[in-house]
């Protein structure tokens, strides 16, 4: 039972090690000549004031909403991809077409958002 999960543990371990290693390697290998001005928060050349924890712009909301919708559609692709070989054996091209239609539908939605300027930041 447990040996089935070894690849997953392995992936988790590699991800953790890689993440930590990248952070520390930049500290380790990068040149570091700190002084007082460099360590102070950047505020367009003015003297720093206020908290660095600013509210996020409301524009981010739009991108976040679009992300939620397009992100979640992937869950329909996963089971299809996992079962694709047996589906192909049973249905032939009809195993492929429905997902094709599904993705085209998604792409039309994406095209609409793009053309209407939903992803423009300014």
């Amino acid at each position, binding site marked *: *039972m447990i040996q089935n999960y070894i690849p997953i543990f392995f992936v988790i371990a590699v991800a953790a090690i890689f993440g930590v290693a990248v952070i520390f390697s930049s500290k380790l290998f990068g040149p570091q000549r700190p002084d007082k001005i460099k360590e102070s928060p950047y505020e367009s050349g003015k003297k720093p004031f206020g908290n660095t924890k600013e509210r996020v712009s*409301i524009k981010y*909301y739009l991108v*976040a*909403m*679009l992300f*939620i*919708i397009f*992100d*979640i*559609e992937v*869950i*329909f692709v996963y*089971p299809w991809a996992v079962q694709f070989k047996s589906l192909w054996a049973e249905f032939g091209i009809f195993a492929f077409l429905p997902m094709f239609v599904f993705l085209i539908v998604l792409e039309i939605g994406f095209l609409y958002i793009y053309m209407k300027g939903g992803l423009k930041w300014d």
Partner: protein
Amino acid sequence: MNSIPIEYYLILSAFMFSIGVTGVLIRRNAIVVFMSIELMLNSANLTLVAFSSYLGNPIGQVFVFFVMTVAAAEAAVGLAIIIAIFRNKLTVNIDEINIFKW
């Protein structure tokens, strides 16, 4: 693997559902209300998955996929509507959104 009996899942999901309903009823911030609604949907998901594993029948898990998608769409629509009302009234407190009365 099947050492946890189905009742435990059901009690947990019923508990989550009750928290969700209570949240919808007593919270005043529209965004928190939506979070409570998400909790209700997720408790239903938990029930579906628990039954699906208990009955050895995959339909429940398929259902969960659809519920997750619908929940995402509902969250997006809900947030969009909250933004629309925030632009007009500068508040998301549902007690202050009260043009229409009996």
